[in-house]
């Protein structure tokens, strides 16, 4: 708001006239005033004024983003606000476009309501709540947002139907349905149920034996025991670990630049996640390890790394999941710095998004417009990671590793390695020394027609280093290119004693190499290496070269209850690390944190039911969706905390409920009232996701490789440009979680079925329905190969075509075929037999076609 110097007399007049001039910000504001400010004034200032008079630009030296700045006024030092006589306020004259004052905002007049709001604000003294940040106030609409209140154990709602519920959580669902006059669905049949829960917990189909056993089990806890069996399966961690890896933004490549270079050690973190899920590691512990495993382990760069420490250090790879191009940055120093800050920003975004369910990027450049996260608070959060990710103390990704060994063993290893390097080098040099003169002699032998001087000339040319040769020498070498080439074999043939020495040296080198110590096992980690934490600043407009005020580590004030501040404890003796990340973990995992448990239980609900109680799993903030059943979400969150953050306990709670066991059958009345099933009047039909689809294809065909963990199975670009796994690779039939997750090279089959190419993280996938998927199931070599193996498997199992036919349905769909399916199958086989009649492999082809169509059918692709 530019102040014209011609106004000075007016203002001076006001001063001298003794008008009561309020100093902006002096007044004590009531909660109502604060709400008024946060809902009406701050958004207005942010949208219309801050671009020119905010943290980035201060046209005419004027800022309007804090009480102090407002009071200070512009470069001319004039007063903007006259509380007792608002009509004399320069600010209001400007926005009212009165004469003699610059018209503000210059691009167009504010709405009447906005001008009225500003007038009221001026009358209230032009105050700014707190110190100019909405988040510091614990007031305003954000203060009342449901997700920013700690979850409280809700009373069970009354219901009319006292029979239906199997679990307290059913009461919440039932109450919602009864309020609309609706009834839940009857239980699904047992075949449906076991297929549902098996895919749900382990991402694979139940075997026919497992189905039959469940059908035959008449005991009341039959289903609960199925759930227990599945939760105890190592396959469980592979299924639920993958969800976590998506949320955490896991990839096997660095991304950022097109090079998308390799992350060869990331798999250790992937395996750590799978292990943690299988062990039912408490969620608070799991997160603490990932945020601060190095601090938990008492890691020092120069200290021992035991196996127990290695597990904790591996967990910190969580903080390395964001794209990181700093190993390839080759621009000017500015660009290199930008690339480094991008890593910090990316990882912070994943932390906040995955653990708190909030979007945060907006606050990188300005006050968050939708969430109570101030610009400054964003950098306070950054300051927590800053000691590990300071651009001035950068380590490129490939060097951010440690060996699992004691310090003594590391030195010893290094010493032995160096010694063998030296020995091998000496041996090789000795051979070179011997070979040199022999080579000369051989070359001379090849020029019998030249005199001694001529031979010397040739040798001089051979010895002349590249680039320092005369044109004559170049010409000479080109002319005799073949004659001057002396291979090792040439030498050995001409000089048998050389061959003998050479073989001895080779044996000696081999012997030395045998003594070379095996490489130490390495892991990729995040850790602080300097005990002096670097100073961090607010970055104005998010620009790394525009540092503003210094910031200390902190968390958004709105999320701090009175009992849960961020507390950075004094460093234990000898610890290098600042303890900031441990403090973050302690703050997050506190039982009264408003978001931590809710975000996780919502995500678990989403994976069981297809949609979360909050349908935006990575955004529970004011801009996220409202929960469909807020009390149920709280109930689950409180139970989760009460169980000691046991995820498997939460699964049991949900899976043994009546709502989970409902049938998916369509009923007209609830469908008309709630077509999207937000009240959960039935179980939703869901397509297998990408990994479950590929894994189930392999399981049904009998090929699934059950081995757990290890380095990724590499993907490759095939001749047609698609991304696939080499069928001959020894790990080609491992589960999809073990396939290389390269950001720019997503396995085509998985990509077609909506596997994400992780740029950030992904808590929720789309389910697309595209003709390209149909093409893949009909024509891809992968799908054909599975059908062939499936046909072969059935050939092995039984010679009887009728039994085979039934078995195919049992394996793929978890049930025998219906009469119509059986009938259609027979007709199809007859028709195919006629087509392939003369072909010697006709029978095999008929069965392969049959199997492929079963695996392309919706009865296989969907879980009821």
């Amino acid at each position: 708001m530019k102040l014209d110097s011609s106004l000075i007399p007016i203002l001076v007049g006001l001063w001298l006239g003794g008008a009561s001039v309020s100093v902006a910000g002096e007044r004590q504001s009531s909660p109502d005033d604060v709400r008024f400010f946060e809902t009406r004034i701050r958004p207005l200032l942010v949208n219309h004024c801050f671009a020119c008079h905010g943290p980035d630009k201060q046209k005419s030296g004027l800022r309007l983003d804090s009480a102090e700045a407002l009071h200070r006024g512009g470069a001319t030092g004039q007063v903007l606000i006259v509380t007792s006589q608002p009509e004399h306020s320069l600010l209001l004259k400007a926005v009212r476009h009165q004469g003699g004052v610059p018209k503000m905002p210059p691009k167009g007049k504010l709405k009447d309501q906005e001008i009225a709001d500003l007038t009221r604000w001026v009358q209230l003294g032009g105050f700014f709540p707190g110190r100019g940040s909405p988040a510091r106030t614990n007031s305003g609409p954000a203060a009342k947002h449901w997700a920013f209140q700690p979850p409280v154990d809700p009373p069970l709602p009354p219901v009319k139907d006292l029979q239906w519920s199997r679990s307290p959580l059913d009461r919440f669902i039932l109450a919602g349905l009864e309020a609309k006059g609706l009834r839940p669905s009857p239980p699904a049949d047992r075949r449906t149920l076991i297929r549902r829960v098996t895919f749900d917990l382990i991402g694979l189909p139940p075997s026919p034996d497992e189905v039959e056993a469940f059908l035959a089990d008449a005991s009341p806890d039959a289903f609960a025991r199925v759930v227990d069996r599945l939760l105890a399966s190592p396959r469980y961690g592979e299924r639920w670990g993958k969800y976590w890896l998506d949320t955490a933004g896991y990839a096997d490549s660095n991304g950022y630049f097109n090079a998308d270079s390799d992350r060869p050690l990331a798999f250790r973190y992937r395996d750590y996640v799978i292990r943690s899920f299988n062990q039912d590691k408490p969620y608070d512990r799991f997160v603490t390890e990932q945020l601060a495993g190095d601090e938990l382990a008492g890691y020092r760069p120069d200290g021992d790394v035991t196996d127990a420490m290695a597990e904790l250090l591996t967990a910190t790879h969580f903080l390395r999941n964001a794209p990181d191009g700093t190993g390839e940055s080759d621009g000017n120093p500015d660009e290199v710095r930008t690339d480094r800050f991008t890593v910090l920003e990316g990882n912070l975004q994943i932390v906040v998004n995955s653990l708190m369910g909030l979007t945060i990027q907006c606050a990188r450049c300005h006050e968050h417009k939708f969430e109570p996260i101030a610009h400054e608070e964003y950098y306070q959060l950054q300051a927590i990671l800053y000691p590990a990710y300071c651009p001035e103390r950068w380590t490129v990704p490939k060097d951010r590793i440690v060996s699992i060994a004691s310090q003594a063993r590391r030195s010893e290893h290094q010493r032995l390695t160096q010694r063998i390097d030296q020995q091998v080098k000496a041996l090789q040099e000795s051979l070179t020394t011997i070979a040199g003169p022999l080579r000369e002699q051989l070359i001379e032998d090849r020029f019998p027609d030249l005199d001694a001087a001529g031979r010397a000339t040739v040798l001089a040319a051979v010895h002349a280093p590249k680039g320092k040769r005369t044109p004559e020498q170049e010409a000479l070498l080109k002319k005799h290119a073949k004659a001057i080439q002396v291979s090792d074999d040439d030498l050995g043939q001409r000089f048998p004693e050389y061959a003998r020495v050479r073989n001895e040296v080779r044996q000696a080198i081999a012997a030395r190499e045998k003594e070379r110590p095996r490489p130490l096992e390495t892991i990729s980690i995040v850790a602080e290496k300097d005990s002096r934490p670097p100073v961090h600043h607010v970055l104005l407009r998010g620009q790394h070269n525009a540092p503003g005020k210094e910031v200390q580590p902190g968390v958004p004030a709105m999320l701090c209850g009175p009992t849960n501040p961020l507390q950075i404890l004094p460093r234990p003796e000898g610890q290098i690390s600042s303890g900031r990340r441990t403090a973050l973990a302690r703050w997050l995992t506190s039982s009264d944190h408003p978001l931590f448990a809710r975000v996780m239980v919502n995500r678990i609900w989403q994976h069981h039911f297809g949609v979360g109680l909050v349908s935006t799993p990575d955004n529970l903030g004011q801009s996220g969706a409202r929960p469909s059943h807020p009390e149920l979400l709280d109930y689950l969150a409180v139970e989760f905390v009460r169980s000691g953050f046991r995820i498997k306990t939460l699964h049991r709670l949900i899976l043994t409920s009546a709502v989970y066991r409902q049938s998916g059958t369509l009923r007209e009345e609830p469908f008309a009232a709630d077509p999207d099933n937000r009240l959960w009047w039935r179980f939703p039909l869901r397509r297998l996701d990408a990994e479950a689809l590929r894994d189930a294809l392999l399981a049904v065909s009998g090929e699934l490789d059950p081995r757990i963990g290890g380095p990724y199975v590499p993907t490759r670009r095939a001749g047609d440009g698609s991304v696939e796994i080499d069928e001959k690779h020894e790990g080609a039939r491992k589960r999809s979680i073990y396939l290389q997750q390269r950001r720019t090279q997503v396995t085509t089959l998985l990509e077609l079925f909506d596997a994400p190419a992780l740029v950030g993280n992904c808590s929720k996938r789309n389910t697309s329905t595209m003709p390209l998927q149909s093409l893949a199931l009909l024509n891809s070599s992968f799908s054909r190969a599975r059908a062939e193996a499936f046909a072969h498997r059935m050939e092995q199992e039984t010679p009887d075509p009728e039994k085979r036919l039934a078995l195919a349905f049992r394996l793929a769909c978890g049930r025998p075929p219906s009469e119509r399916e059986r009938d259609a199958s027979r007709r199809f086989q007859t028709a195919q037999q006629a087509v392939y009649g003369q072909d010697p492999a006709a029978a095999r082809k008929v069965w392969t076609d049959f199997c492929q169509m079963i695996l392309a059918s919706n009865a296989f692709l969907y879980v009821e």
Partner: protein
Amino acid sequence: MKRPLLDFAWTRRAFLTRSAGSLGALALSHLLAEDSRAAGAQPTGPLTPKAPHHAPRAKAVICLFQHGGPSQMDLFDPKAELTKRHGQAYEGQLEVHFHTQAGKLLASPFQFRPAGASGMQLSELLPHTARIADDITLVRSMTTESVDHEAALRTIHSGKIFAGRPTWGSWVLYGLGSLRQDLPAYVVLSDPGGLPVDGPNNWSSGFLPAIYQGTPFRASGVPVTNVQPPAGVTVEARRNQLEFLNELNGVHLEKHPRNEELAARISNYELAARMQATVPEVLDISRETAETRTLYGLDQPQTAEYGKRCLLARRLVERGVRFVQLFLSGQPWDTHSKNAEGLRNLTARTDQASAALVLDLKRRGLLDSTIVLWTGEFGRLPISQGTDGRDHNRHAFSLWLAGGGFKKGYVHGATDDFSYRAVQDVVRVVDLQATLLHVLGLDHRRLTYPHDGRDDSLTDVDVTKARVVPELLA
């Protein structure tokens, strides 16, 4: 907009009630039919043609994207003052990217000549573009948000510097749907040399549903995967397969009535079968005349590759594909050194076919309904970088537009004396995007999608104040 003809009314009910025997036969008869009319649109799929907000001038887009930042003062924006002051220091502040290498003012070594009836000044490097001068709108006053390649690419494709936003092709699909469902509606023709800088982000659907993302046809090898049936599966065997599959899925659907996703998947098998015929047909340029092939430069090694992709772009649009985007590998226009030499090579490779595309569309009557956009992500500086290069410039760049109701033989806007800064009739990228959507019948303020708690859009008008630029339109 005239709704596409559903002459082959492949509605779900029709599909499901066909007897198993006739279904396969129908599919097969269709496999071989070349049908450029809108065939087989799904009744309610996300790609179903949708009514635009207002009467559109164009229904398709071909974007010839020139990665790296083409040098406007050497191609489109002649500056006498720059030539005069060659070698002198630039007076005033310049935003440079590579701070340490900022040199003196660097004149363009290329001659500019008036082209067409309009007398549009174009560089000698663009003799073919000169031939279409009377068909294009040349904008000399473009500005963008960043001098960083990735951020500027995101801006020109998706409106803002941030990753994760939908590209404008995705917005167009979301707003208008597809005219055919036997071809992808948003096709990316990438360079056999490799992906462009920023890779698939250039055609990402961001927070829009994945179905709106660009489908990259492979530049080498097989452009669309899995189009051919497995070895040994004959036409008849495939027909039986589809019939059997349809029966199985029919039984399944009876248990799950009113499930649109299942219905869509069932029709997708039929569409997939159609793609098996249409895709190879589209890609087969052997029946193009010798004259056409020469027009696109297919007879010259230097122009053949880019020319072939321009020709493919025309064939795709001709068959109802909504949005086609061509990319070059890496960022060849990024002439930080040897600017003149780089420009000579690139224009020799691309000028002829870019112009041929406009000429060819025009003579086939397709230009009026197709937007052709030639642009990079930013421009370059009037001073040298090192001795013979030019650094990035976000304050001015040039682009051209043809067809779709854009003015013909028109130059819009101007830069300062050195082509450092656009000063007259400035067009920001978001203004361009608003205008492109407008031409396609979409109101950029109303084409929104709920994301992160608000209705987000390509231009985010509340923040950017993007506006349609009516001066660009005839």
